C-alpha cells in the first residue's frame, strides 16, 4: 500500500498557498484555477475518487456504456475532473479532515495516520448533506437517503431489485425516480410530500426563475415529471404521515394521500427532503452563521469573494448555502480568485474582472433557486416530526424526548448534554437540524445562531492510538 503521507505533501517547499477541502465541483474548480495561476494547492477529500457526490464514479463512467442512463448533466463532471487532473494541483483522496484552526492549520487522517498541515488560505468546499428525514421507522435497514440509492447507481452500477418506494420532495427525488426506472428498478410508488399551497407561494417567484439559466432547469423538471407519468409509476401527491414498518428491515410504507390511508410493500425506501449545507466544518473553525429562512437552514456568512468571517477561510459550493453543482463551480473559481488576489498572484483589477464573469454566470444558475425553495420546502413531518420518531440515530433519542426539553426552554447544547443526542459518531449531523426545528417550533420563532450544537474536534471519530501517534506539533 502507498505511503499515507508523502513528506512532500505534508511540508512542501515554500508551504501550501491553499488547502481545498472537498473534491466536488466547487473544490475541483477552485483547485484547478489556483494551480493554473501557479499557486501551490492541495485538495483533501474523503472519497476515494474525485467528483464529489454529484459526479461519483465519473472517471470510470466512460468504460461503462450503461452509465448513460444517468443523463447528460452527470457527464458534465468528466471535463471538470480531467481539467483538475491536468492542473498540477496536489490531491489526497480518502483523507478526513478532523480539526481546523485559524492560521490556517488543520489535522487530517489518512489510512489510520494523522498529520498537521498548514496553508496560507483554506477553501472549504465540503458540499451538502441530505436533510435528515426523521420519520417513524427511518432507522430500519433498507431505508436510505435518495442520494445513497443514486450513489450506488453512479459508483457501482447497482439498482434496487426489490420493491422500491421513493418518498419526499425536491428535484433530486424526481431525477432519482427517472434514473431508477431507466435502470429497471421495480418502483412501487413515488410519494410526493409537497403540498398544493407550495405552488402558489412559488408562483410569484416564477418571473425571476425564467431568467438566466432558469428555463433550462424548469424544462428539465417538467420533462422528468412527464417521463414518470409516461412510465406508469404510481405517483401519490400531497402525501403525509409516512411511517416505515418492518422488524429487522423495512417491509412496508404507510401513508395518507387523497383522504385515505395507504400501505405499500417495500424492500428499499429512498427518502429525500432536499439538501442542506454540511455545516460541521464551518462551525468548528468558528465561521459566523445566519439562518436562511427560505432554505430552512443555517449557512455561514460569506462576502463577494466567498470569504467567511475568519481571515483566510473561504467557502464555495453547497456548504455555504445550496446553489447546485453548476453554481458551485463558479463559486469555487471566485474563492480561488480571492485567494490569488490575497496572495498577490493576481492584480486586484485582474481578479475583479475575472470574478465579475464568474458572478454573472453564477447569477444565471441561481435565478431558479427562490422558486424551487418555495416549491419544495421541507415537509411538515420534517419541521414538526412525530414524538415517536428517532431524532438521534446514534444515541437513539426520540423526538418526544427532545421536544419535552425544548418546551422547558432548553437550547441545543443543553439538550445534547441532557440526552446525549449529537454525541454519537455522526456528531449531530443527522439530528442537529431536527433539534433546531423542534426548538424553533417550541419557541414559535426563527432559530438563532445559538440553536445548534457547538462543534468540537475531532470532526470524525478517531482512535486514541491515532491521536497519540500524531507527530509533535511545529510552531
Amino acid at each position, binding site marked *: 500500500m502507498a505511503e499515507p503521507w508523502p513528506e512532500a505533501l505534508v511540508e512542501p517547499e515554500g508551504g501550501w498557498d491553499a488547502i481545498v477541502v472537498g473534491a466536488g465541483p466547487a473544490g475541483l474548480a477552485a483547485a484547478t484555477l489556483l494551480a493554473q495561476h501557479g499557486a501551490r494547492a492541495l485538495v483533501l477529500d474523503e472519497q476515494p475518487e474525485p467528483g464529489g457526490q454529484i459526479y461519483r464514479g465519473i472517471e470510470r463512467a466512460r468504460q461503462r*456504456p450503461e452509465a448513460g442512463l444517468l443523463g447528460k448533466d452527470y457527464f458534465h463532471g468528466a471535463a471538470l475532473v480531467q481539467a483538475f487532473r491536468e492542473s498540477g494541483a496536489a490531491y489526497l483522496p480518502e483523507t478526513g479532515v478532523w480539526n481546523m484552526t485559524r492560521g490556517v492549520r488543520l489535522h487530517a487522517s489518512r489510512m489510520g495516520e494523522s498529520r498537521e498541515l498548514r496553508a496560507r488560505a483554506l477553501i472549504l468546499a465540503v458540499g451538502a448533506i441530505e436533510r435528515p428525514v426523521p420519520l417513524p421507522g427511518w432507522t430500519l*435497514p433498507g431505508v436510505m437517503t435518495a442520494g445513497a440509492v443514486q450513489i*450506488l447507481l453512479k459508483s457501482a*452500477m447497482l439498482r434496487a431489485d426489490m420493491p422500491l418506494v421513493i418518498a419526499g420532495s425536491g428535484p433530486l427525488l424526481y431525477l432519482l425516480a427517472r434514473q431508477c426506472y431507466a435502470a429497471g428498478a421495480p418502483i412501487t410508488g413515488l410519494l410526493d410530500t409537497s403540498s398544493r399551497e407550495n405552488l402558489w407561494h412559488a408562483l410569484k417567484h416564477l418571473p425571476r426563475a425564467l431568467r438566466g439559466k432558469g428555463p433550462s432547469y424548469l424544462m428539465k423538471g417538467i420533462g422528468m415529471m412527464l417521463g414518470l407519468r409516461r412510465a406508469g409509476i404510481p405517483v401519490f401527491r400531497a402525501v403525509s404521515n409516512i411511517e416505515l414498518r418492518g422488524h429487522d*428491515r423495512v417491509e412496508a410504507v404507510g401513508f395518507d394521500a387523497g383522504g385515505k390511508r395507504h400501505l405499500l410493500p417495500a424492500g428499499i425506501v429512498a427518502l429525500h427532503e432536499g439538501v442542506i449545507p454540511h455545516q460541521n466544518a464551518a462551525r468548528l473553525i468558528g465561521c459566523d452563521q445566519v439562518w436562511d429562512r427560505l432554505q430552512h437552514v443555517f449557512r455561514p456568512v460569506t462576502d463577494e469573494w466567498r470569504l467567511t468571517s475568519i481571515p483566510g477561510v473561504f467557502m464555495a459550493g453547497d456548504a455555504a448555502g445550496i446553489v447546485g453543482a453548476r453554481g458551485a463551480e463558479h463559486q469555487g473559481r471566485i474563492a480561488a480568485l480571492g485567494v490569488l488576489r490575497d496572495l498577490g498572484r493576481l492584480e486586484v483589477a485582474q481578479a475583479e474582472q475575472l470574478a465579475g464573469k464568474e458572478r454573472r454566470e453564477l447569477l444565471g444558475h441561481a435565478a431558479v433557486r427562490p422558486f424551487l425553495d418555495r416549491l419544495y420546502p421541507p415537509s411538515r413531518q420534517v419541521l414538526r416530526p412525530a414524538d415517536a420518531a428517532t431524532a438521534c*440515530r446514534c*444515541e437513539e433519542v426520540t423526538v418526544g424526548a427532545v421536544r419535552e426539553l425544548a418546551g422547558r426552554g432548553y437550547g441545543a447544547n443543553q439538550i445534547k448534554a441532557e440526552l446525549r443526542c449529537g454525541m454519537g459518531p*455522526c456528531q449531530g449531523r443527522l439530528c442537529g437540524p431536527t433539534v433546531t426545528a423542534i426548538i424553533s417550533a417550541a419557541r414559535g420563532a426563527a432559530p438563532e445562531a445559538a440553536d445548534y450544537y457547538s462543534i468540537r474536534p475531532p470532526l470524525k*471519530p478517531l482512535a486514541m492510538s491515532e491521536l497519540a501517534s500524531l507527530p509533535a506539533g511545529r510552531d
Partner: protein
Amino acid sequence: MFARLEAGPGDEHDEAITLTVDGVPVAARHGDTVAAVLFASGRLAVRMSAVSGSPRAPYCMMGVCFECLVTIDGRAGVQACMTAAASGMDVRTAQGGGHGRALA
C-alpha cells in the same frame, strides 16, 4: 436487494477484486466501496445500534451517518462507504464478529 446493471456493449468491468466478508470470499469491481460490495453481495444490516442493539444498514453512502461502520483488516469502526474495496481485504460486519462502534 441490489443487483448490478447488465453491462452494456464494450463494458470493461470485470470482477477482478476478491475480498472476504465475514470470512466468505466475495467478488467486487474496481471502484466499488466496501459498502457497495456489502449491498451487492445481498447484505443489508451491517451493525447493531449502540443503545438498543437493533440492526442498522448503510443509510447515506457518503460518510455522514456512520451507520455502515465495520471492521476492516482488524481496524474497528471503519466507514464502509468511504473505503475503496481492495483484494485480500478482510471485512467483518456485526454478524462476523466485527465492531460497528467507532472508537472515539
